[in-house]
């Protein structure tokens, strides 16, 4: 019994230590975000990587999500003779929940993994130490541009995902479910409120921060060659995905 309690205690202490290390890393990174030098060229490059190159995957995911949502809502709401709510449900679901979450999960898989692999490889090949010996702060040069780019870019991606997702629902509703195109669009616009979109964009900024932070943190602390970099990459994606869903709940309870 005592052995069991000791094991639980050890796991709990290890969890607390890991959470403490991550919090310190995040606070250090945030403090460097507001201290010069700010590498604008690197931030721009990261924004292109995170935003522009993620557009195809986020767009495809969003359009299919919107299409499935319209089908499922129509089929489910038929039971209550409430098919007319399809447009509103698709719009609300995409802007408030599915747009930010789906886009963030896709970016976590594409960008979080890439950040962890790149910084992890730099760690195990002494390139991060080399930055320090060249009088360059690795946090400012590697971590800050990625965190700023992730936080700023994901809301734009989510805005695009919202529009494409609603468009997906529109296509299915008008061509397959027999809705009137003008009526569908009218209902979407009439029921759309600013806070629906803004709450999704706030979530997107937080999720973008989480994806970049977890990629940087796991890469920065990777050890043990190729195997360590592989483990860091996996950990970055899994932990970012779990944190996105956790913070989605927290933000939803705070915002609504």
């Amino acid at each position, binding site marked *: 019994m005592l052995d069991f309690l000791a094991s639980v205690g050890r796991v709990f202490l290890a969890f607390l230590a890991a959470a403490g290390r991550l919090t310190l890393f995040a606070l250090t990174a945030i403090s460097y975000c507001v201290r010069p030098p700010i590498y604008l060229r690197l931030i721009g490059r990261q924004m292109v990587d995170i935003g522009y190159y993620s557009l195809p995957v986020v767009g495809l995911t969003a359009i299919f999500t919107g299409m499935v949502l319209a089908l499922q809502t129509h089929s489910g709401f038929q039971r209550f003779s409430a098919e007319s709510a399809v447009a509103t449900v698709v719009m609300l679901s995409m802007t408030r929940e599915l747009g930010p979450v789906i886009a963030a999960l896709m970016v976590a898989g594409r960008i979080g993994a890439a950040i962890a692999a790149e910084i992890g490889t730099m760690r195990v090949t002494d390139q991060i130490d*080399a930055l*320090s010996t*060249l009088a360059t702060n690795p946090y400012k040069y590697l971590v800050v541009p990625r965190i700023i780019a992730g936080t700023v870019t994901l809301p734009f991606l989510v805005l695009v995902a919202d529009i494409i997702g609603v468009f997906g629902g529109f296509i299915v509703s008008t061509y397959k479910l027999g809705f009137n195109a003008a009526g569908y669009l009218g209902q979407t616009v009439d029921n759309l409120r600013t806070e629906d979109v803004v709450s999704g964009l706030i979530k997107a900024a937080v999720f973008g921060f989480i994806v970049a932070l977890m990629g940087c943190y796991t890469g920065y602390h990777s050890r043990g060659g190729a195997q360590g970099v592989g483990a860091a990459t996996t950990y970055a994606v899994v932990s970012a995905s779990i944190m996105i869903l956790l913070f989605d709940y927290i933000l939803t309870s705070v915002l609504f």
Partner: protein
Amino acid sequence: MSDIAKIAVRGLKKSFGRNLVLDGIDLDVAVGESLVVIGGSGSGKSVLVKCILGLMEPDAGSIKIDGQEVMGSSARERERTMQKFGMLFQGSALFDSLRVWENVAFGLIQGRGMERARAREIALEKLAAVGLGPEVGDLRPAELSGGMQKRVALARAIAAEPEIIIFDEPTTGLDPIMGDIINDLIIKCVRDLGATAVSITHDMASTRKIADRVAMIYKGRIIWHGPVASLEHSGNDCVDQFIHGRAEGPIKMEVRAL
């Protein structure tokens, strides 16, 4: 020559868990001197230089650069101190995402805020100083051989004309001829800059060529130091065993019987 040592290390201790790696290192490096620290694999040579460079936090002791204590200094002070250093890493540690000239000019552009065009000119000069043509400047590090990467790393280490250059196993992984070329380049670059050099290696040919003074580290302590000329007559059995590469002697490697 100044009385103040360029690098002064006192009572430096560092352990990882129960493994005591540095057990009270005392070491002075004079201005313009080339010190080579020798010792077996895992003896703590790399940990010692990482502590001097501030890449690792020692558990106890003192490190002074030009008489200024650097232990416990702030990140900003540390960045300022780092401007005195150049470092050649064992695996070269070139930035894969940058072209060769950008690697060489990195410290000038990022560390000192120099204009890119001027930094490129200096980078090409430094590449020429290590025997590489300007055409190499536009290549990526992955397109170079191991020897060329080492030369680029040397060019990067000297680009900002540092006062102190640290060489971590500069000839490891190179064929003997390329190793000797790198040794000659190290001597030339250090002499041209008038820099202080600290090298860590277990390559005795390299040690004899580039050292003014040699220190041997064993079990986390400096067990002998003296001029390179007295290395053969150190009177220390451990040093004698090490420099002649004998399996038998006071140094026992932890090798499990087959």
